């Protein structure tokens, strides 16, 4: 008191009011947290759901959009969503949906078959160039049977068609808010470019839990824009965010030491890292190098010389498994379980190379014409894991006398070389598989495809095995019988394994960070791993 009486009256007033505010804050009961926070790696380029393409846009889409069928991310099977039932015609040329009654968009506009027809018309409009439109064949039509029933008619028989509707956000045909009217659990409320997005609970969301409680449980979701992995991890540790999808192995390891209960390893993911050689006939590379790259034995020798176990153990700190092919064992149905494990056998690699006329000269490998075996591999700058893999592969190949030059490029110039100029020798990249069905890879395997990376846009298949893959992909895309489709794609996986156009390296594990304050989170291997059931997530 003596101290208080000695201070200036004005300061005394400030002191007393500060203490009073502090006491008041302590007395107010703590409000339950209802805002989930996590991050995007960048600003979404568009909020039009039909134009959602990259991870950031797809995240917003997943949180806000409604769709007819939802693939359950844990069981990997289709489940009713806005359509409470559906039926595929025996000729597989149409699918009829029965729509859930009494559903409204976030602005109160009723949801009817008109909205589905409008969405299909818009998404297949070539002028829009929607990435979701690619999954529907041209001339796909719709026929409204009643306000709650619609039939989608395809020009040719379709397989695995349910998955296409999982990724089709339904727009409103009548709402004045256009694409801002949504059917998902949240609606966009606020966007501060470069800072954050605020999504607020959709009051008209149709779903209720088993006790009849209106979903979602959360009041809002805030998505911070944060590109840097380290800052994201630091913010998670400071409890500023509650979820991280795709945590990198180093930070995951740290989390297992600092807070093991919050570190979730969902096992091998669908994502695959691989290396391939440029076999494009017109690529600006020397003919003798093209001849190496077109040699199956050369590619197989490189594959045999790579120590994949070390890639998993060293680069991914044990959170990865050697990849066997285009699909990982995480794809429960389509993965070919008959594929043998990848072998690490430098002696076999040398024999394969010798069979092609390669020989060692002063500890350096030369081809039959005497050219030193040296090539470059390009990968994207800033990817620590890919650079780490390239460094280990460089050392593995050095043991065979092969010189590998690692070139890291900024992503746009990398894509320019891969897709436009074909000015590269080998590339190391990864594929994020979002589609379980091999139909999702119809843009990769057919030899005429622009994304047939090792030799795209072929007028006719360059090799007999590519011709066989073309035929098998058509079979798997059109066969009525699922077993027949599976057999065809199993054979594709086997051919790819035998001919090694892609040298598959690792399937990294799905690693996530989930705050202990949350309940209802069941991380899956499919996107969007931790929040696929966002409407059922809540705080403890």
């Amino acid at each position, binding site marked *: 008191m003596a101290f208080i009486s000695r201070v200036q009256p004005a300061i005394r007033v400030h002191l007393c009011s500060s203490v009073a505010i502090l006491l008041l804050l302590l007395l107010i009961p703590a409000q339950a947290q209802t805002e989930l926070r996590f991050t995007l790696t960048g600003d979404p380029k568009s909020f039009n759901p039909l134009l959602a393409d990259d991870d950031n846009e797809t995240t917003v889409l997943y949180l806000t959009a409604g769709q007819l069928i939802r693939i359950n991310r844990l069981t990997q099977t289709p489940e009713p969503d806005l359509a409470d039932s559906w039926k595929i015609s025996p000729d597989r040329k149409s699918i009829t949906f029965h729509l859930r009654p009494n559903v409204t968009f976030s602005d109160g506009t009723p949801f009817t078959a008109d909205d589905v027809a409008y969405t299909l018309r818009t998404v297949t409009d070539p002028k829009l160039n929607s990435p979701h439109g690619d999954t529907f064949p041209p001339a796909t039509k719709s026929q409204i049977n009643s306000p709650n029933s619609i039939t989608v008619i395809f020009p040719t028989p379709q397989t695995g068609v349910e998955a296409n509707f999982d990724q089709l956000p339904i727009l409103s045909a009548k709402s004045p808010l256009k694409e801002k009217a949504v059917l998902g659990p949240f609606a966009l409320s606020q966007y501060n470019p470069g800072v954050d997005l605020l999504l607020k609970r959709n009051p008209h969301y149709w779903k209720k839990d088993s006790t009849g409680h209106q979903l979602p449980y959360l009041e809002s979701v805030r998505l911070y824009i944060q590109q840097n992995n*380290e800052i994201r991890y*630091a913010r998670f540790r400071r409890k500023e965010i509650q979820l991280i999808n795709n945590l990198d192995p*180093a930070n995951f390891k740290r989390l297992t030491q600092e807070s093991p209960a919050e570190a979730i390893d969902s096992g091998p993911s669908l994502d695959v890292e691989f290396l391939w050689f440029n076999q494009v006939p017109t690529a600006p590379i020397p003919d003798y190098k093209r001849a190496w790259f077109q040699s199956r034995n050369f590619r197989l020798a490189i594959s045999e010389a790579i120590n994949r176990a*070390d890639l998993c*153990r*060293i*680069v991914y700190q044990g959170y990865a498994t050697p990849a066997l092919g285009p699909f990982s064992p995480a794809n429960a149905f389509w993965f070919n379980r008959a594929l043998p494990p990848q072998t690490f056998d430098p002696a076999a690699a040398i024999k394969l190379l010798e069979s092609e006329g390669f020989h060692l000269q002063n500890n350096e490998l030369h081809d039959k014409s005497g050219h030193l075996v*040296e*090539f*470059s591999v*390009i990968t994207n*700058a*800033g*990817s*620590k894991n890919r*650079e*780490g893999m*390239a*460094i*280990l592969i*460089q*050392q593995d190949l050095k043991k065979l006398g092969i*010189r590998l*030059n*690692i*070139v*890291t*490029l*900024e992503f746009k*110039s990398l894509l320019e070389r891969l897709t436009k100029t074909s*000015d*590269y*020798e080998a590339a190391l990249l990864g594929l994020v598989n979002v589609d379980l069905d091999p139909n999702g890879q119809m843009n990769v395997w057919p030899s005429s495809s622009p994304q047939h990376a090792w030799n795209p846009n072929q007028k006719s298949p360059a090799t007999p095995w590519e011709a066989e893959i073309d035929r098998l992909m058509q079979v798997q895309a059109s066969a009525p019988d699922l077993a027949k489709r599976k057999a065809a794609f199993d054979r594709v996986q086997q051919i790819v394994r035998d001919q090694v156009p892609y040298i598959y390296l690792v399937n990294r594990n799905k690693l996530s960070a989930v705050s202990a304050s949350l309940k209802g989170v069941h991380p899956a291997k499919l996107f969007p791993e931790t929040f696929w059931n966002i409407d059922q997530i809540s705080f403890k």
Partner: protein
Amino acid sequence: MKIAAILILTLIFLASLAPVSYDQQSRESISSPPSKQFPLGTDDVGRDRLSRLLYGTRISLLLAPCAALVTLLIAATIGITAGFTGGWWETLSMRVTDLFLSLPWLFLFLIIRALLPLNTTPILSLILTFLLMGFLGWAPAARVIRSAVQQFRAADFVLQARACGCPEHRIWIHWLAPRLRGILITQFFLSIPIFILGEASLGILGLGVSEPMPSWGNLLRELTTAPPLTQYWIFAPVALLILVMTSFQLLLPSRE
């Protein structure tokens, strides 16, 4: 100053004492702490940090002066001719200098680097990285040299020499060149740390010297994963970088 010079020279020659080759991987000792075998531990693919640091230091300390020399040659040619001749050449060369000064050189560097042939060996990529920096970094020095030449050209002693009938080449050799020497040497020593830091910045972005060649840039990259302070040995490249930068600053005043 002498101590600084000795330190830099010592660092250049220390690489020959590196315990193992900079690219030798001990795959059973990944990210290991300091030990007898690895005095600064190993990196995340099992390479000896000390060896890489010593090699990386030598590379930066040898190639940054080479890049500085390239810069100085270009800057001196442009600065001296512009300052001495004046007229349209001065206007043209100074506008080009302004253009180079206003360019975001990091992006320019990335564009040029993307256009270079891919199949370059690590040592060639290293030389190209520093040479490119040398070719792109001449503008500030050119402007300083041109100002100095302009000042000297109008100085009383030059006017007096001309009035006495002294030929131009004699004025150059006996009066201007000795005065420019100090400026050129200062610009040379100023450029070296800029290029060392430039390479370090590119390395941190993963766009500098190719693996497995070590450089301060790719050694410093490890720090971008925010290692705990208890792993003090990871900070050795930073300590050495600060030491070398300070040494170059100490070398400057006496030269000036």
